[in-house]
């Protein structure tokens, strides 16, 4: 059964895909910005190398700043949240309220974990001497991952709102499209991180 539109497609779904297409270009500029300035910082802290940096008003030697195990855990959690939301959507379409609520709650928890991981990481980096204007790495890193984190936060709020609706019994099977649209946005946030993780944290 197709919606009564000229294309036979749901207009809200068409809108979210158009939005996701525009977001591809938005993140491409941020990733370009990071790559263009990669390796051109004059002072530390740096992602992979020991460097000279200003800490508490004194020049000192700074260790590489990235903590790969923590970010790997965050990446895995975000990947699993994509699996969870797709299972929640299955539940919503089948009218299985228990499945919908259980998997959607797991997705929200994963999203909150990821945001928490990023807040911890930013705070930790700041205390290690990496401010927004410290060097080119700091500016491009915080801009790229900060915008992604903002998208994750918006996604968590969106999915949590749908979770509340589901808990109140206001998301029957015929309204599963509401979750499908939010899930598409969530998967997009996930695929952007699939690119950011190796580009920012692993590549030399």
């Amino acid at each position, binding site marked *: 059964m197709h919606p009564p539109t000229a294309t036979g497609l749901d207009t809200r779904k068409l809108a979210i895909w158009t939005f996701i297409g525009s977001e591809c270009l938005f993140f491409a500029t941020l990733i370009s910005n990071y790559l263009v300035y990669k390796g051109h910082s004059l002072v530390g802290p740096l992602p992979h190398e020991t460097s000279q940096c200003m800490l508490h008003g004194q020049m000192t030697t700074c260790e590489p700043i990235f903590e790969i195990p923590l970010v790997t855990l965050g990446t895995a959690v975000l990947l699993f949240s994509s699996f969870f939301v797709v299972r929640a959507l299955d539940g919503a379409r089948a009218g299985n309220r228990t499945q919908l609520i259980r998997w959607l709650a797991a997705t929200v928890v994963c999203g909150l974990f990821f945001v928490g991981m990023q807040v911890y990481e930013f705070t930790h980096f700041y205390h290690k001497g990496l401010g927004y204007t410290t060097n080119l790495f700091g500016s491009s890193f915080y801009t790229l991952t900060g915008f992604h984190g903002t998208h994750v936060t918006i996604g968590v709020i969106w999915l949590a709102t749908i979770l509340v609706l589901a808990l109140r019994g206001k998301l029957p099977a015929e309204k599963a499209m509401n979750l499908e649209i939010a899930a598409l946005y969530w998967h997009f946030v996930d*695929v952007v991180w699939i690119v950011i993780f190796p580009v920012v944290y692993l590549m030399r």
Partner: protein
Amino acid sequence: MDAQVATHHHESAAATYTKIAVVLFVMTALEVLAYEASHRAGWPMHGLVQPFLNEILIVLSAAKFALVAMFYMHLKSDSKIFSGLFVFPLIIATIVIVALLLLFSYLRSLHPVM
């Protein structure tokens, strides 16, 4: 009969999603292992992985991206219009990234302080 078909479809989709999740997890583990192997001289395959680390990461990342887009975002089975709306900007995005990297590389060859 319809309910049986729906249940079977539901279970088969769930199995596919689970397999994809496992594959994504394994690929992420491989990315991190490749990173560690290229950075630690004593690790197995250090000499083999180090020169190709970026290439390995690009291939694994592209494969993960494609799996999520095709199966979790349902582009494999959904309307081709949605695929077009996603893939066309993605091609432009890739061109933008490559063009800017080439442009700045060229400008730095002219003015090394940039």
